[in-house]
């Protein structure tokens, strides 16, 4: 329990650091961020509406405030959940945009990443147990090769070969464009169908890494005395592989889950971009290109929080799985 509290404290500090970085970053950049935004407005628009510049300035809250008091104000805003207005989706507030897109991303990444983890570790376990067998010699190098391709390349390949040429999957958006969102079977079915190819890509990209790390740990674990003793006790092969070897071998890769999740978020951006999938990744890319700073920064913070939350969940899982941590 103390372990979890310590982890929570660590995350709180990291979160504070991320928030602070978010505040400091635009002020470190050359020029005022507002200039980038102004550059996108045509002279005609500016001339027609001179007040808009000042309105935007105020709405975005960048100017005139000194560093420290601006920081306090900012902290207050963050705590209240007030991230301002999204300039590219004017006049929607940032929180509304995020609220619209976050569920799709969580659905996509949540399911797919867990599947990748489960599949990868299972295959890694079998690959190590039966060295030189089918899984070890065929599946492992295949997944490693696929995982070596950058995520966006794999997405392009998938879109082209599986979506376009073979026509097995829909290749764009989260649901059929003629449907409207609602909790009905047709809509949900469409959502699931459209999510299949992106999820497949995520699994293909990440399963290989899990497989390799699980396999390497498992190879060492198999040499342990308790595995030999389990065999000597006359237990079934399957039980020794899973409950004795696998159950212990999964712990180190689990600690790597945290850092892999950060990579998953990066991959998510690419995948959503290629598939035009309306999640936070695509939104971030568009916001950044369009100089929509409030939205971009808020998204960065939200993503950081997601990573922290995923880490914390993994820590909880680790405590459940490894009794030695509980007494430490």
């Amino acid at each position: 329990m103390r372990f979890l509290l310590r982890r929570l404290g660590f995350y709180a500090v990291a979160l504070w650091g991320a928030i602070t970085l978010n505040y400091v970053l635009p002020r470190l950049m050359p020029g005022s961020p507002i200039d980038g935004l102004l550059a996108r407005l045509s002279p005609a628009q500016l001339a027609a509406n001179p007040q808009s510049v000042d309105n935007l300035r105020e709405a975005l809250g960048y100017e005139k405030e000194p560093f420290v008091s601006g920081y306090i104000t900012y902290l207050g805003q963050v705590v209240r959940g007030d991230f301002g207005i999204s300039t590219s989706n004017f006049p929607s507030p940032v929180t509304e945009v995020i609220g619209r897109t976050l569920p799709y991303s969580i659905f996509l990444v949540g399911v797919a990443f867990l599947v990748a983890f489960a599949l990868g570790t299972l295959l890694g376990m079998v690959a190590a147990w039966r060295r030189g067998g089918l899984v070890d010699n065929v599946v492992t190098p295949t997944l490693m090769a696929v995982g070596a391709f950058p995520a966006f390349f794999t997405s392009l390949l998938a879109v082209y070969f599986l979506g376009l040429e073979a026509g097995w999957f829909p290749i764009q958006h989260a649901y059929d464009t003629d449907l409207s969102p609602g909790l009905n079977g047709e809509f949900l079915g469409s959502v699931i169908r459209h999510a299949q190819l992106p999820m497949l890509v995520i699994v293909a990209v990440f399963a290989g890494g899990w497989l390799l790390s699980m396999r390497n740990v498992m190879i060492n674990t198999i040499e342990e005395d308790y595995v030999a003793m389990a065999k000597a006790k006359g237990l079934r092969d399957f039980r020794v592989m899973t409950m004795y070897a696998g159950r212990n071998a999964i712990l180190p890769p689990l600690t790597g889950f945290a850092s892999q999740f950060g990579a998953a978020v990066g991959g998510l951006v690419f995948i959503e971009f290629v598939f035009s999938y309306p999640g936070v990744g695509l939104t971030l890319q568009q916001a950044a290109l369009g100089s929509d700073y409030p939205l971009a920064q808020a998204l960065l913070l939200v993503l950081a929080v997601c990573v922290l939350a995923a880490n914390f969940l993994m820590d909880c899982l680790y405590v459940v799985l490894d009794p030695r941590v509980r007494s430490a």
Partner: protein
Amino acid sequence: MAAAEPEAHLDGPPAVLAADMPGERPASRRRLRLPGWARLLLRNPKSCFGIVALAAMVLVALLAPVIAQNSPSDIVGLPGQPPNRDFWFGTTDQGYDVFAQVVWGARTSLAVGAAAALMSTVIAATLGMLAAFSGGWIDDTINLVTNVFLVIPALPLLIVVYSFVPQRGPIVMVLILGLTTWAVEARILRGQALSLRNRDFIQAAKVSGESTWRIVFGELMPNMVSRIAAGFLLVFYLSIIFAAGLEFLGFGDVNKTTWGTTLYWAQNNSTVLQGEWWHFVFPGVALALAVAALVFINYGIDELANPRLRRRTRSSLRRRLLGLPPRESVTS
């Protein structure tokens, strides 16, 4: 970025490696005097493949004017041609030579990756060793900053930073990548420096009055060279991926020729949806090959450090028969 990070690393002087390989002939009898580590890496099939592949790509990039006759930024043929005898990789929908783009693009992509990795490794090694050696509030501060950078997902951070910077182009890319990707290695190197710090030779240096800088760079760093090198390779391929990815999303200078920008144009002009697969497959394969080469070199280093991962060799067998523990440095 799914390739796994190396798990176990050499934590001792290179003498460990030399003693592991049976039957070393003295260097003086050899005609070609390669350093010990180079010989070992070439002997391991995985890292040998990586080194050869990487060397080949660097060679192609350097010889770009010779290999690719056409300039990548000239319209040289009919648009939209599939690979044929004149244009080995086909032409884009605008009429550019894809082969030329891949070959010339290799220069910028590899150079950006290497430069960013160099910058990142220098920062990581300096901060890591400094934190481990100084302790106290310096260590705490560096730790805090490192943790923050580790927690914030890399690509979104890069995207947001990029959105604030008005200039685009390879130099900016190198700077931004170098300044954001150091965190992972900094943590690992700090860990290793900490374990080395308490070893006798460091204590002896401290007691004999050597200055901190001299100890860090003169005594500590030579023992961490292998890990630093492995880290450099890691950040190298991460940088290649990040750079290409950012360019793909539109954050690079779209008028320069790199693998990422070629892919950007492929996506932007919907060549994928039009079925012109050669426009994105070839640059993508080049990318994947460069990354794979570096990853495999790292696998080789991994296997050298953890003998159990290798195919069983005579030396590890002998140790087992004598009842000696296997030579390894497994981190859990």
